[in-house]
């Protein structure tokens, strides 16, 4: 077997960029360009503005009510430098959400651009679509879905508090990796209010077609919401044990349902 065949076999064992070959001390041209493309896609995912109206329309088509909100970060540059601004609502959104709040609800859902609008464009509607039947079946009172821009995870605390929600789930674009510009994260917080820490949340990461699929993510999220509302907590004290359900034959039925 030639060394080339040997390296090809090794390269199949890892997603890492091995066995690239070299031109002197440098990379072959095709590898420089491949890397450049992956970096360009990740950069574009960070800077692409969220298509708020299209996302809203997609969510409304699933039968959810919708609202919009903006953080106190006026633009992307400020957003990247000042994470504290991205965790607070701007004044207009605070007023609008206060106005929109009705009776207390069990769950508020926030769809936020975070660090990848692309992840939201491609992944938010599929996840909510997979989640909808379970939400309906549980009989929880829901707030309208809030589509939020220039948002960090903790913006959900302010939204959840204003909408009088017992728990908030934030679907947010994650920091794009070179091979995953489209990864959505989901953060669930019980009794949301400004000042909550990350240790008080549960997280599902890498939600995308090539990672944690929307169906599986919806199953896990529904399990976590149910546990959070029953046990009245989220965070380090709530471990994701939804896999135990998945392991049994009954669990397969739950996913298909």
């Amino acid at each position: 077997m030639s060394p080339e065949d040997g390296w090809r076999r090794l390269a199949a064992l890892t997603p890492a960029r091995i066995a690239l070959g070299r031109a002197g001390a440098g990379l072959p041209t095709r590898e420089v360009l491949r890397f450049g493309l992956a970096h360009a896609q990740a950069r574009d995912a960070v800077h692409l503005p969220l298509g708020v109206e299209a996302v809203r329309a997609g969510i409304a088509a699933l039968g959810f009510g919708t609202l919009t909100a903006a953080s106190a970060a006026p633009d992307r540059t400020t957003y990247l430098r000042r994470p504290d601004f991205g965790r607070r609502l701007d004044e207009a959104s605070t007023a609008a959400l206060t106005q929109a709040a009705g009776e207390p609800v069990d769950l508020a859902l926030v769809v936020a651009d975070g660090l990848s609008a692309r992840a939201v464009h491609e992944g938010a509607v599929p996840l909510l679509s997979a989640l909808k039947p379970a939400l309906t079946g549980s009989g929880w009172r829901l707030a309208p879905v809030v589509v939020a821009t220039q948002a960090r995870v903790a913006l959900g605390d302010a939204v959840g508090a204003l909408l009088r929600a017992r728990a908030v789930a934030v679907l947010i674009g994650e920091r794009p990796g070179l091979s995953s510009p489209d990864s959505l994260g989901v953060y669930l917080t019980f009794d949301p209010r400004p000042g909550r820490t990350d240790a008080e949340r549960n997280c599902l990461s890498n939600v995308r077609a090539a990672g944690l699929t929307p169906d599986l993510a919806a199953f896990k999220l529904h399990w976590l919401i149910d546990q959070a509302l029953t046990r009245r907590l989220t965070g380090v004290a709530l471990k994701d044990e939804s896999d135990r359900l998945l392991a049994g034959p009954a669990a397969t039925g739950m996913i298909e349902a």
Partner: protein
Amino acid sequence: MSYRHVVGPRTFVFSDLAELMAKASPPRSGDRLAGLAAGSAEECVAARWCLAAVPLPEILARPLIPYEADDVTRLILDGHDAAAFARIAHLTVGDFREFLLTASTETLSRIAPGVTPEIAAAVSKIMRNQDLILVARKARVVTRLRNTIGLPGTLAVRLQPNHPSDDPAGITAAILDGLSYGCGDACIGINPASDSVQGLTGLLHLLAELIDRFAIPTQGCVLTHVTTTLEAMNRGVPVDLVFQSIAGTQAANASFGVTLSVLKEAQEAALALRRGTLGDNVMYFETGQGSALSADAHHGIDQQTLEARAYAVARAFRPLLVNTVVGFIGPEYLYDGKEIIRAGLEDHFCGKLMGVPLGVDVCYTNHAEADQDDMDTLLTLLGAAGVTYIMGVPGADDVMLNYQSTSFHDQLYLREVMGLKRAPEFAEWLARIGLTDAGGALLPGGGAPLLAASPGLAA
């Protein structure tokens, strides 16, 4: 005590040394986020004028974080070498910069135990990038475990073969690829996806067996929490190097779940294993500007000064390797290529001035305003500055940590441009098994000797 500087009609007043140091810092987003940065470019330079006039003994006499409140301050002051300091005790910060520019390698190594992190940080703030490079290049720090790292004219590389699910075959494939480029003399160091003791045990055995099979004069490391490594050592698992992330304040270290006494306990446990053949530097630390602010443990001190204080923690444990992970933390601390480049040079300079074997993870994330060209620039500047080691990540793309570092190819580039050799024992090994010629140049054949010795994977 306050500091003043008059510029034309304006008088700039700085209420204390902490404010003066922060406002004298070259601009960066983390100090702005903390509300510590100078309000204008003029105020920043006024602060540097003031700082240049501060006598070094005054910095020693005014701890930025009180002795009673912080064990890193106690470590710095209790361990201070007054005899070494005596050579520079008559100098102001401004004089000290000029002293450093003219000092010899021997002088730098003699004063190192007398240089506190606050002194190193203060002088760095009034130095240009070229000053940081020139002085760091003269300051040599040599360490040993199974090879010799830090000799003049050498550059070592940590081979970083991470895998998103710690798959042993995938990790081994990346190690073989890295070795075929002559990487791995600093260490072969895995960041595990799982932090379980079981996972750690498997990876440590994998590294020990691979290093044994090829008889590589290097050391393995799995970069997990120090308490997990301690547990593994208690269970008899082979540990060459103990890793831990550290920071410059007691509270920030506490947020990492680390105390100085746990570090001491781990160092002693690793020394007792006697796995070194040439020396007994058994610790590996990582640091990075912004970690204390991120942990809300910065005491109103600027991030570059706190970073230098982390090197005082490192220095107390005679480490084999210490590296800043300079661009990993994100744009809210270092916004763009310019800020990352400056921080990388500052960190390397401060570490070397304090006698710490500093390497740099030249890196960035995708939400920072930086790209491969910025990394090439910093890498080249650090090569000129005599950086102890850099990372070797396949294709510069870490598929587990989701950031971009330097690649196997990048170290070849730096060796060719700067004429830098590998650690001598490792270089001999590469020549012996037929991967390089006697001069250290890679031989054609694409790492065939490694493939031939790894039939289980490659065939």
